[in-house]
């Protein structure tokens, strides 16, 4: 039985990278969004530049299910190399759309799917002379065909194309033409629409579609960052680029045309973080962006920034580890290397946004936290958040909120100040006062170092001032705990003894999983952690549930380790659900794993319902 579904399906495009499919697929996805139907696109791409398999998956969900789902209801098979494996992943009753110029081998790969063949290569050969054009417009043609097959308004597509190619009329015309070739061809040959289709809705509301890396780069602009020292690495590169692009837009001095920011591609990650530490020390809001290997290389500087108390913001867009690992896959596996970064006793502040919306918010406030606490702050993204576009509430900024520059003594403060001691805990919150180089001709100069020193920043090897200082840093860590974003609780409709804890990009799948579980009669309270050090509310949550699952996208249950180390929780009370193959976690997976671990009767039922 062919699947019948309106505004609720997954379509997967199998392409070859470097073939220009990305923009066509985005056009497809955005046209559905413009019709008011929520979408969740995901890009699965290889770690090379051209010629290898790449997939683009769009989940269309009126209900707003934005996590990855798994499986595909329609496959657009544009890559002969992966043809067989792609077809195997189609859901029973699903659809296959392929280029029928050459005969498919074996001719009928599955008998439980509907096959739609369109001679794309042949059409392109007839329509275009230039081989590059043939390649490029083939993509647009299949998008046009899909409009017909899925009942997407082709005018919406044209409008989107018009926005994209504003001022480039020739390109626009060519794209329009390609769209119509596909549309018309499909309309003429096939029974349109298929059982799966799109229908106008208003479920998108005012939401925007944006990549987390863009949100972070923009957030850093809003947060007042002026110095970015970075080194390219997938999947963090586009974050730095987004910062620069937005700076080029918003940070050019109107009078002089000069830049109100410094964007420096360093020679490596050590230099990148060194630049950030130097700039942070000298009073600029500064950040770097990197991924796992960079986190490893920056360790020594993280320790310096912690101990010398220099504000620093680090965006870690996590990818599959260890080592070079899976550069184009997603994971949440740098928690321990960031939280305990560097040798010696160190603990660092982490922020864990769930998607672009929170990324924007946290990226702005990360600079406040870093300056308030005079310490490194890590914003933990992952490839899924950073490089995929997500539907999210529009960005908001409160113009009345001033930057929190923390405890900085100005020239005038210094005039009034008595005995300035850089590492004096004047306020009892563990956070000392600092001065800026050059601030005052005779007061406030101090020496910054990574060695032990007394409260007046003078070098010492004595145990007493050393311990005094280390204890103050612990107090500061408690101050951080009280300042950072608190976890977000989603309470089940009915009281329940089952709790689930998650963080970061798991949120979308978790939201769906909780609903699915509830539908299966399993009520679960869900708590989303947003920062480290961990809020005491997390301990309360664990205490108030009999069974607590901790869902993570890593192998070693890193958050669970943080929970036991930071909150003293008993690991035996925390059941790990781990998903770390590099693809985004799905609600299906969470439901299956939770159900499988709950007392049998409930589990039985659930498994059957969702798998």
């Amino acid at each position, binding site marked *: 039985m062919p699947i019948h579904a309106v505004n609720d399906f997954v379509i997967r495009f199998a392409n070859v990278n470097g073939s220009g499919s990305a923009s066509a697929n985005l056009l497809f996805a955005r046209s559905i969004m413009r019709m008011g139907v929520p979408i969740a696109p995901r890009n699965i791409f290889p770690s090379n530049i051209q010629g290898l398999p790449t997939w683009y998956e769009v989940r269309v969900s009126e209900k707003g299910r934005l996590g990855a789902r798994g499986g595909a209801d329609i496959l657009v098979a544009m890559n002969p190399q992966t043809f067989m494996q792609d077809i195997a992943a189609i859901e029973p009753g699903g659809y296959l759309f392929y280029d029928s110029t050459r005969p498919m081998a074996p001719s009928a790969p599955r008998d439980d799917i509907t096959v739609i063949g369109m001679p794309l290569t042949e059409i392109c050969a007839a329509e275009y002379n230039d081989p590059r054009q043939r390649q490029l417009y083939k993509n647009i043609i299949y998008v046009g065909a899909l409009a017909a097959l899925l009942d997407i308004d082709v005018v919406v597509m044209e409008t989107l194309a018009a926005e994209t190619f504003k001022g480039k009329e020739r390109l626009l015309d060519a794209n329009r033409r390609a769209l119509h070739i596909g549309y018309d061809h499909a309309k003429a040959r096939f029974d349109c629409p298929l059982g799966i289709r799109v229908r106008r809705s208003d479920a998108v509301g005012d939401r925007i579609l944006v990549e987390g890396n863009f949100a972070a780069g923009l957030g850093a602009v809003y947060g007042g960052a002026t110095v970015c*020292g970075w080194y390219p690495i997938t999947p963090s590169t586009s974050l730095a680029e987004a910062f620069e692009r937005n700076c080029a837009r918003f940070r050019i001095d109107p009078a002089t045309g000069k830049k109100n920011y*410094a964007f*420096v591609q360093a020679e490596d990650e050590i230099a990148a973080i*060194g630049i950030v530490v130097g700039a942070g020390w000298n009073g600029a809001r500064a950040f770097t962006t990197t991924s796992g290997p960079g986190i490893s290389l920056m360790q020594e500087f993280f320790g310096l920034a912690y101990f010398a108390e220099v504000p620093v913001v680090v965006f870690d867009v996590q990818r599959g580890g260890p080592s070079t690992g899976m550069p184009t896959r997603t994971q949440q596996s740098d928690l321990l290397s960031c939280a305990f970064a560097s040798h010696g006793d160190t603990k660092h502040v982490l922020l864990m946004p769930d998607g672009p919306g929170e990324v924007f918010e946290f990226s702005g406030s990360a600079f406040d936290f870093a300056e308030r606490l005079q310490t490194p702050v890590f914003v933990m993204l992952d490839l899924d958040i950073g490089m995929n576009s997500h539907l999210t509430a529009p960005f908001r900024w409160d113009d009345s909120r001033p930057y929190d520059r923390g405890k900085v003594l100005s020239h005038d403060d210094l005039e009034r100040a008595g005995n300035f001691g850089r590492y004096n805990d004047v306020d009892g919150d563990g956070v000392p006062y600092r001065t800026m180089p*050059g601030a005052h001709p005779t007061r406030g100069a101090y020496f910054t170092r990574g060695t032990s020193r007394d409260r007046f920043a003078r070098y010492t090897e004595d145990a007493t001032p050393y311990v005094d200082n280390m204890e103050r840093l612990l107090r500061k860590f408690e101050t951080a705990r009280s300042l950072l974003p608190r976890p977000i609780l989603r309470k089940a409709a009915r009281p329940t003894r089952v709790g689930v804890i998650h963080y970061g990009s798991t949120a979308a799948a978790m939201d769906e999983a909780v609903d699915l579980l509830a539908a299966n009669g399993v009520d679960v309270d869900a708590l989303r952690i947003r920062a480290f050090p961990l809020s005491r509310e997390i301990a309360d949550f664990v205490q108030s549930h009999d069974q607590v699952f901790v869902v993570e996208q890593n192998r070693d249950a890193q958050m669970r380790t943080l929970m036991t180390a930071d909150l003293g929780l008993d690991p035996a009370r925390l059941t790990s659900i781990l998903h770390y193959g590099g693809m985004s976690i799905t609600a299906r997976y969470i439901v299956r794993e939770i159900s499988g671990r709950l007392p049998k009767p409930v589990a039985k039922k659930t498994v059957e319902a969702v798998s």
Partner: protein
Amino acid sequence: MSYLAKPKFQHPSLEVNALGFTHRDYEGSMSTLCAGCGHDSISAAIVRACFELSLPPHRIAKLSGIGCSSKTPTYMLGQSHGFNSVHGRMPSVLTGANLANRDLIYLGVSGDGDTASIGLGQFAHAMRRGVNMVYIVENNGVYGLTKGQFSATADRGSKSKKGVDATDEPIDLVALAIQLGASFVARSFSGDKAQLVPLIKAAFEHRGAAFIDVISPCVTFNNHAGSTKSFDYVREHNIAVNALDVITGRSTIEVDYAEGDRQDVLMHDGSTIRLHKLEAGLDVSDRSAAFGMLERHRFAGEIATGLVYLNEGARELHESLDTTHRPLNELGQEVLCPGSKALQAINASLR
């Protein structure tokens, strides 16, 4: 060092500079280096140069890595903010500091281990970016602080205190700095204050990456026979290729050389560097000539000192980046934050 504190008493006739500061105002806390360490002489030369140039101490930021040499910023310029960072990474920290506030005067102090061994990459890249700073390497051919291992500047065949030969090709930081695009490159000797002080002054007057390699004997681990960085060896093999005067608005020309021997360079801030060529024909603005000269002396087993290369027209990092003239760390929220209106437009473009 001695543990006795210096007397606080200042002689009333102490020399005062244009800012009204005395020499003492440029000093730092007491050195904890070995008595006789070359590095202390360099600190003294830096103090002297800053005093003579009347640099406002609090406008200087002094940064270093790790090592005996890198400790010295504590022993000079007590009114300046200092940053003793991590081993070999001063260049990047200084670069970042400089980006945050282009208006301060940046002094980087490093050792040969700090710069030529662990820090070679950062050194190279800071040079090629043209970071506006004075970068001084206190070069003793060994790791002083870890007790005398060879660094990458140790000459092939030079003997360690334990009698072991250095076997690898030495790194000539001067040749490298020029190769990498530094715009002011000099070499000197901690024992030659007459040469060193004007060189440091000239380096401060230069805008761009100014590098000085100062041979600075380690009396404890590298001052024996067989070392090519001992006081005796350096004194014997030191060939000064030129002598120089820094002529600021405030100072007058002290020595007047014959026309042909002389090279005057006008610095961007209006002061002049007057060079007396001791090595005939050496034009400090000629890269090729600099390489040739260095190779010649290398071949002869000599240590060429003096100003080796100067390119006063070079671009410094802020020019390359086209950053605003105001220090970035002074920009207010009104300049930095695009505000909620702009966000509406962004949101609209993302639908």
